């Protein structure tokens, strides 16, 4: 994998669930982390990629990067903000 410029602390796959569970699953994974740690989210194209990054931002976390895997899935990198 290309150098991201940061270390990933945990990963979660949300390609097996639908909205709004996509967001809920991401949120639960973030709750396990400490402030400043980074979560990698594996998500589907379409509705998840259009909505999850926005919802995460609205929760106050920092979206660092979104990478298109080219196979209909994406990797989203989130830095946890707040406890």
């Amino acid at each position, binding site marked *: 994998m290309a150098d991201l410029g940061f270390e990933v602390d945990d990963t979660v796959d949300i390609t097996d669930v639908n909205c709004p569970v996509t967001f809920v699953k991401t949120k639960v994974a973030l709750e396990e982390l400490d402030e400043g740690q980074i979560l990698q989210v594996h998500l589907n194209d379409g509705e998840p990629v259009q909505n999850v990054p926005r919802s995460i931002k609205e929760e106050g976390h920092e979206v660092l990067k*979104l990478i298109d895997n080219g196979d209909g899935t994406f990797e989203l990198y989130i830095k946890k903000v707040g406890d």
Partner: protein
Amino acid sequence: MATDYATLKKGGFMKQRQKDTFSLRLSVVGGQVTAQQLVAITEVANRFGKGYIHLTSRQGVEIPYIKLEDIDKVKDALAEGGVSPGVCGPRVRTITACQGSEVCPNGCIETEELAKELNDRYFGKELPHKFKFGITGCQNNCLKAEENDLGIKGGLRVSWIEDKCINCGVCAKVCREGAIKIEDGKVSLDNDKCNYCGRCAFSCPTDAYDTKPGYLVSFAGLFGNKISKGVEIVPFVEDKETLFRICDAALKFFKENANPSERFKFTIDRVGKEKLDEAIWEAYKGNN
């Protein structure tokens, strides 16, 4: 003494099929009714009506089965609760609105204040025929702007902020108009394709869009015996002052050109749309 039905109708009392019985239309602005008003409405409906209200197709509230002899008592009871009668007949009708950007995540413009301002300027204004204003906060168009004689649709003019962008590409994905292209890390926006829906800005995870709210105005919609979709004349309107000038110009045009009982659409068909276009463009440019 003969009952003056025209005056009653103007004051919101709609004649029912039943003799000397009225459905009282109340004034509602932008679909907002306070809890206190609801209490007053409940009391009147219980005491003078049949204990129910009717919600109209345009966000109105009516209290059916009000007796002619109770009209003054009903008006007083409503006034105490901060409720006033609405209007019917040939004049500016209820200003309808969705909840707008104050409440709705998709909303591009503030709608509640705008509805009140339009109401203060125009509500009840005497015209050759009915005239309806409707405000919808975004392209989702929950309030069906183009059904109205004058429809206002909120939008966002967006511009990309390069140094906040992480090149995730979500904006290009959510754009339904194909207006966003990303090449070599640069976002370009095709203004001819952009419909001001704001999806790019809303979906952006890093707030890399600067947004400016504004209005798309449509004219001469109809959704009754005849159906016709309101049409836009001028481009995106960026300030309220210009919007009000445009509204003033449309009402002036209608008042001066319409025959009695002729809807805006048919006035325009008769006198020529180019004449309305001219009046609206002048207002847009601030020349009137």
